[in-house]
């Protein structure tokens, strides 16, 4: 047996491949090691460590930033599943810190207050992979061009209202389908209209899907919400406030995990939806003032 050369970390395949391993799973927001353990025990594929869930960020206001490193380390040592954490849009030093802490994925997130209103983080140069939010295909492709190894719908975080996630999943899906109908000449114009690199536009037209894993996020609060997003083409689900702002987090978390796996089986979804207690109290997104809509953050 010969000796293989030393390995290479942080390659595109290693970053995108990590997201492939999360498919069909649920990633849960947690704010304490105790919540992280509940999430792991319920079958989460990963946890998102943050200081306040989006519903509390909305309620309390102020500037939302990267979490305290002590708190992130506490969660990393509490569970054996991957731990993600959020950096502000454009805040490349928060991202450097999160990479140094050893988080497994960084969410460059509109839920935190943006640090740069023109630029996102140049993500390709990092060893740690990034997930970014998108409201449509063009936004998804711009993030992938910057180095995002995973995309999620933005939805409207902290509302418990799935309507915006539905809108974004449908928009991304429709954008992908449309590219498949265009010829070579038309794809140049499509790239211009999408404000996205031509090579990525051609790749999506050929694959019929994004070149990275697509999750959904932003307002998922019930097993049926998660299953609907999966049927709309999501490859997995982020649940933010929906679990730990509900009456029985452990049971709701397990139910959402099961509904995500059996998203195409209404009997299973009916069964797991029973006896979950109170869901989080939701917000009608149409009543939110423009400045409180997180999905408009990102460029």
């Amino acid at each position, binding site marked *: 047996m010969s000796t293989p050369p030393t390995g290479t*970390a942080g390659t595109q395949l290693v970053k995108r491949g990590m997201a492939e391993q999360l498919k069909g799973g649920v990633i849960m927001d947690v704010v304490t090691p105790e919540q992280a353990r509940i999430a792991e025990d319920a079958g989460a594929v990963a946890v998102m460590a943050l200081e306040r869930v989006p519903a509390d960020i909305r309620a309390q206001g102020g500037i939302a930033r990267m979490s305290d490193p002590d708190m992130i380390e506490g969660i990393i040592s509490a569970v054996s599943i991957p731990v993600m954490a959020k950096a502000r849009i454009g805040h490349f030093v928060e991202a450097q810190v999160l990479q140094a802490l050893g988080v497994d994925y960084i969410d460059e997130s509109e839920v935190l207050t943006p640090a740069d209103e023109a630029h996102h983080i140049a993500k390709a140069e990092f060893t740690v992979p990034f997930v970014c939010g998108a409201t449509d295909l063009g936004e998804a492709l711009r993030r992938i061009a910057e180095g995002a190894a995973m995309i999620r719908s933005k939805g409207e975080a902290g509302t418990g209202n799935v309507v915006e996630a539905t809108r974004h999943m449908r928009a991304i899906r429709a954008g992908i389908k449309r590219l498949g109908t265009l010829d070579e000449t038309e794809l140049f114009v499509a790239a211009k209209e999408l404000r996205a690199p031509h090579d990525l536009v051609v790749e999506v037209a050929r694959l019929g899907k994004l070149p990275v894993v697509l999750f959904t996020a932003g307002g998922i609060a019930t097993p049926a919400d998660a299953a609907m997003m999966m049927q709309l083409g999501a490859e997995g689900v982020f649940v933010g406030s929906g679990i730990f702002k509900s009456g029985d987090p452990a049971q709701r978390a397990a139910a959402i*995990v099961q509904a995500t*796996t059996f998203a195409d089986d209404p009997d299973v979804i009916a069964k797991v939806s029973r006896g979950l207690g109170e869901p989080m109290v939701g917000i009608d997104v149409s009543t939110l003032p423009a400045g409180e809509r997180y999905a408009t953050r990102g460029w």
Partner: protein
Amino acid sequence: MTPVVGVLALQGDVREHLAALQAGGARAVPVRRAEELAAVDGLVLPGGESTTIAKLADRFGLLDPLRDAVRSGLPVYGSCAGMVLLADRLLDAAAGQRTVGGLDVTVRRNAFGRQVDSFETEVPVDGLAGGPVRGVFIRAPWVEECGADVQVLARTADGRAVAVRQGRLLATSFHPELTGDRRLHAAFVDVVRQAA
């Protein structure tokens, strides 16, 4: 004969394994229920989160049928989380983590480290013609101890066992399904064909 090979489809990179098996000469089908498991000639336990897959298998009554199938000689290949699920003994497991078992090895979870330590490298695999495979290691486990009937097929440069075989059971720490290289899947389909 085209063997029917299932991929346990509770969570993980199921689609990549289905495509690799199909290219490797099998009819590949997803498996989420006991009756679907009963209809396959071989099974792949995919990459994913081993704790999640084990919990879902347990909750949906698949853990015992999976154990019975392995015990009665069903050929099974596990990659990464699949290797963890096939192991008889785990190190660095989550509290109360269960496995399917059947492979007489001790596997250390996340042995190569966190995602920032994940890597690619060339891995020569014993008995596989055509040169080394591109090993993609993602928060990967390794085999720390092997029983007498277990053959180590590949090691990393620092000597860690990353591919093993015991009869009809095959496991790799890395993810051939993420590369275009179908040789390991084709080799597993051969094992299934010979067992049928």
